[in-house]
């Protein structure tokens, strides 16, 4: 058994194509990004090697740390909302009549491109004739806020569409994981007299723990480098109140022509992701992996 499963030739065949591909297409840029970060470069003409100047600048840059704070906040919200997605997936994977249809419908927003989602939510948040404010006014609030223009509200207002945008993604993964649990397990539990909640929390959740751990990492890393909707809906504004790390990097490199500094920001973003992922892995480490039996 062990001999078959550690056949070097097969392992190489299975791993190398993908590995070489990401080494070429992801690692070369990562290394180069790290290197650009060591230079003063406007993207045109000669690079001037400046050592760790840019990195020092990033670490001392209040605007960067403010954006990092926003990204972290988004990461926390995304991780917490996983619980909600899990709940939806549990319900849908149960034997609810029409679950199949519900599941498909629930995932529809996931198919929309960010361009469409951004336009939709801009219409929701419009200060005077937006869906939300029209609704609030009909409830008797005389002067509802301009959601995307108030520095204190804008971040929260952006998180909602972002979390909503990804709901389908996680529900889909959880659903597939739950559906992968052999039906025999559930039947056995039922015969033992377990109710729906017990089956869900005592049997199903432990079995998909590995999947849940993975989604936590995905949600956190995805949030830390999140860019799309923020870029379209507020462009980091007003006054930097919704700037996140990736949009800050973009603004520095592409708008400000400060590619050296922008690259340093990109690289620090990568390091922050690494550290946080490592912490998550440590926190969620378990001795055994539970398998279906």
């Amino acid at each position: 058994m062990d001999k078959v499963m550690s056949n070097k030739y097969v392992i190489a065949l299975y791993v190398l194509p993908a590995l070489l591909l990401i080494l070429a297409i992801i690692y070369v840029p990562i290394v180069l990004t790290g290197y650009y970060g060591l230079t003063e470069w406007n993207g045109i003409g000669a690079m001037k090697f400046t050592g760790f100047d840019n990195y020092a600048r990033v670490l001392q840059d209040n605007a960067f740390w403010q954006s990092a704070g926003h990204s972290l906040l988004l990461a926390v919200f995304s991780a917490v909302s996983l619980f909600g997605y899990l709940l939806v997936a549990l319900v849908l994977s149960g034997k609810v009549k029409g679950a199949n249809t519900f599941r498909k419908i629930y995932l529809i927003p996931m198919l929309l491109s960010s361009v469409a989602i951004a336009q939709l939510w801009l219409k929701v948040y419009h200060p005077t004739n937006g869906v939300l404010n029209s609704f609030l006014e009909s409830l008797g609030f005389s002067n509802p806020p301009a959601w995307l223009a108030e520095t204190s509200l804008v971040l929260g207002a952006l998180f909602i569409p972002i979390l909503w945008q990804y709901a389908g993604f996680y529900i889909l993964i959880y659903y597939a994981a739950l559906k992968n649990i052999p039906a025999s397990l559930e039947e056995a539990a039922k015969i033992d007299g377990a109710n729906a909640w017990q089956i869900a929390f005592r049997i199903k959740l432990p079995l998909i723990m590995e999947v849940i751990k993975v989604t936590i990492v995905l949600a956190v890393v995805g949030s830390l480098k999140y860019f799309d909707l923020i870029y379209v809906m507020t462009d980091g504004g007003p006054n930097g109140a919704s700037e996140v790390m990736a949009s800050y990097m973009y603004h520095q490199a592409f708008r400000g022509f400060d590619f050296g500094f922008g690259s340093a920001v990109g690289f620090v973003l990568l390091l922050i992701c690494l550290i946080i992922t490592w912490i998550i892995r440590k926190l969620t480490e378990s001795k055994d992996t539970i398998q279906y039996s």
Partner: protein
Amino acid sequence: MTKKTVTSMLLLMLALTVVLAGCGGKSNDGGQAAGGNENAADSGSKVTINFMHLWPAGSSAQQNKLVNDIIAEYQNEHPNVTVKQEILENEQYKNKLKVISASNQLPDVGVTWAAGFLEPYAKGNLFAPLDDLLSGDLNGQFVSGTTEAYAIDKKTYALPIELNISPIYYNKAIFEKYNLEVPQTYDQFLQVVQTLTENGVAPIALGNKDRWTGSLWYMYMADRLGGADTLKNAINRTGTFEDPSLIQGAAEIQKLVDMNAFNKGFNGLSNDEGKSEFMNEQAAMYMMGTWELPNFTTNPDIPQEFKDKVGFFKFPSVEGGKGDINSWVGGPGVGLFVAENSKVKDEAKAFVNYFVQKWGEKSVVDAGVIPATKVDTAKVELPQLYIDLLNELNNASNLTLFADVQLKPDAAQTHLNMIQALFGKAVTPEEFAKKHEEAIAEGN
């Protein structure tokens, strides 16, 4: 699945890997294989000019058609030349320009913005100087002062094809309803704002998410208070943003915000959204460049009754200020560059030369774009609003280029962010000035 198919699939993958693995080793022998087209520029032989621009057929049908017409004519006259277009939308265009210039792969001809945007490209020797064209056919054809915006160290790196000024458009019907006159002085203007807010009409439509939109207002304040040179000097470092008139200008902006002069939530709205407040007659005034004119004259999608209501006035003069009411914020918009390392540089220059002239003859009539070359208003048939504004342009005592274009890219970012902060009252006028000083000092 049989073993055979598995094996062949794996082989396929391996082949893919080999292709990719090649990139590590091969990376140097390519050298500067620039240009991207294999046409050697032997005179008379076939030549392809790559032309990258930002007028897609969908959104800019008239500009797109004009470009295609000019290219077709040019190719007719020069059968050996093919002009190949690549079209990207504004934002993507800027991004791509940035990426390809890092690899020195600019198209032979492309679109650029003036001053601060152009400077890194010019200093990095990516754009070719076009002064020979200026002293040739095009001598004297440009409105004076327009080509200077594309000059770095006395060389001109692009030729402008657009010229804009920014008036305040207003809704005549709303003004009439509240018995308002077009304001000549800033005090009268404030009176107008006051009356409109009292009657529940948003005085000014503004979408300040885009930030350059608010910058227009600040620039006029600065101009009317400090005169045309104060802001220019602050930017070119012979002066300072901490000049009392510039600080006062910032303070006046916040006073307008306090008066609720701008539509609700302006800092969270894009220019398109802000503009719609004016277009649907919920706001009475809207300051924007003359590129907006087709919407008030020729655009068939917009009801004629609305178009008839639109008039314009100049930003009023301020009592005690040094500015002149005929001084405008505006200037040339986009221009054409030729890539310095283009393999077909001479042909590309000839094409630009031709393009600028033809564009100048037709753009205002065909596409509603005011060119940077002189337009004889007597010769062309135009809506009255165009004629009036073209006349204003001819009488302009000064044109101040948009601040975010004048400034270097990173300082421009600070300026724009500060504009949003100023309008959102997140900074005081003094801090506003100080941040500008810091950002510009850093860039030098």
